[in-house]
């Protein structure tokens, strides 16, 4: 694959579509990699050059789960360095889930590198300035994710993934996943070992208010739990933002409705 050397490693990416303006840089979420955007690169490349990166330790890297270089801070540094090295001017940045969190942090730290920002159900928590009920400390899900990570580290990849996926999306979900969607998760399973060590900072009101570029939040209308709460709260405090909810979809909304998702993104980037 094509790579750019950033912060001491070769960051892989798929570069597709003709440049007709700023490239759209796409950042995947947990357990995914550059391939997750495969279902939307068709419609999106009718208008844009897309650069779909794989973050450090995700496929095509085959990571052993060792070391402390899997973190929001490291991945944010890597994306910033990637955009600088790409040398294509300010980019449009799109992130999904944990990749949305990273994209948010890039926008906060280096607004000069971005034109527009798209956050598809960004992952993370809200601190006390945004959520009066916030108690701090680790995510309530951390204990369960640690069980997943321990199984994967012990070699039970499918057992660890099943526990992780079912925790997030309900019992039996892993078993029902089509085989072609399970395999990319297996390819990235060791990243869960890093993720349980990743202490990501909660979003604050000041964080949200500091995002000044045109920002689009995209959600799945049927997603439950913390993700829609975070999305709606951030959207209420990011000044120049719009929100689009896609009917009949959940957290992987662009996989479930690639055409609707692409239309929303193309509209936003054209506007």
């Amino acid at each position, binding site marked *: 694959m094509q790579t750019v050397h950033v912060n001491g490693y070769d960051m892989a990416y798929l570069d*597709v*579509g003709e440049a007709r303006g700023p490239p759209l840089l796409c950042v995947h979420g947990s357990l995914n990699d550059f*391939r997750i955007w*495969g*279902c*939307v*690169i*068709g*419609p999106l*490349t*009718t208008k844009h050059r897309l650069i779909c990166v794989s973050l450090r330790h995700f*496929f*095509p890297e*085959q990571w052993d789960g060792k070391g402390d270089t899997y973190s929001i801070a490291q991945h944010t540094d890597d994306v910033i360095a990637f955009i600088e090295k790409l040398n294509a001017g300010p980019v449009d940045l799109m992130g999904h889930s944990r990749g949305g969190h990273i994209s948010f942090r890039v926008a906060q730290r280096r607004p000069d590198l971005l034109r527009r920002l798209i956050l598809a159900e960004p992952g993370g928590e809200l601190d006390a300035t945004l959520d009066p009920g916030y108690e701090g400390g680790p995510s309530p899900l951390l204990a369960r994710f640690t069980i997943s990570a321990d199984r994967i580290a012990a070699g039970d990849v499918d057992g660890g993934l099943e526990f992780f996926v079912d925790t997030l999306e309900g019992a039996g979900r892993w078993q029902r996943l*089509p*085989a*072609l*969607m*399970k*395999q*990319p998760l*297996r*390819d990235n399973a060791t990243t869960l070992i890093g993720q349980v060590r990743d202490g990501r900072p909660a979003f604050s009101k000041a964080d949200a208010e500091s995002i000044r570029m045109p920002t689009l939040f995209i959600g799945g209308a049927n997603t439950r739990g913390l993700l829609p709460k975070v999305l709606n709260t951030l959207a209420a405090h990011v000044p120049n933002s719009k929100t689009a909810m896609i009917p009949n979809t959940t957290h992987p909304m662009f*996989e*479930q*409705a*690639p*055409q609707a998702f692409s239309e929303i993104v193309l509209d936003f980037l054209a506007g």
Partner: protein
Amino acid sequence: MHGTLGDFRTWYSVLGPLSRKHRVIAVSLRHFFPEHFDGIATDHYRMAQHVADTIAFIEQITPKPVDLMGHSRGGHIAFRIAQQRPDLVRKVVLAEPGGDLDSSLDPTVTPGAPSALAARMLISVKKVRDGDIDGALQNFVDLIDGDNAWRRLPAAAKQQLRDNIFTLLGQVHEARKPYSKADMQAIRTPTLLIGGADTTGSLSTIWRVMSEHIAGARTAVIPNARHWMFENDPQEFCRVVMEFLAGWKRTISRAAFPLAGGEGSVGVGQA
């Protein structure tokens, strides 16, 4: 080499396991995504053109010879390359190669008459011309994988087929020659033929006929799988491919090279 309506993304579900042992190069043939083909100028959508393009592509790769894997129509292309330019190919993997048998292989064939599959493909072509893209895709997918196969496909997989829909307008004029017995007997490259145990129709027949006429051909059947067998069971597919690629002798004894993958398997190779 992807097949009809595919592109380089066709192989996404097997990139992880295969790239643990091999460098994988997944091409997109002329007119397939990332090209946004409108289906109007179809003069260069020919089987012979895609064969010539791929030969020219391999000639620019180092090191040569390469191992060549093709699915469906891509299997037809890989077969023709092994036939025309055996110097470029070390081993060849044909996953349910597409095409027709001529009268030297099937005495019931009327020379020049379209096959049953080709005739039903014309229904999809008409639907594309009428603007009914999803109707065309449903006819195509259900034709190959059975009724309701389209409806059961994840939306993400549907979109990748949709991105290539206008290639069907070229495919009707592609001038694909049927296989002859002499064609098959001319293949000297070590060959693995892979089928899905539940595939029906001519796609389940052609590779079995090849196994009778290609000297030393190995075979493997993926249980509980159909025409897109590598998406139905990425792990088993990768296991048989990697086992085949790892064998180093040009002619491999049956005992040294067990590919029998369960009760669905057919005979393992014939000298």
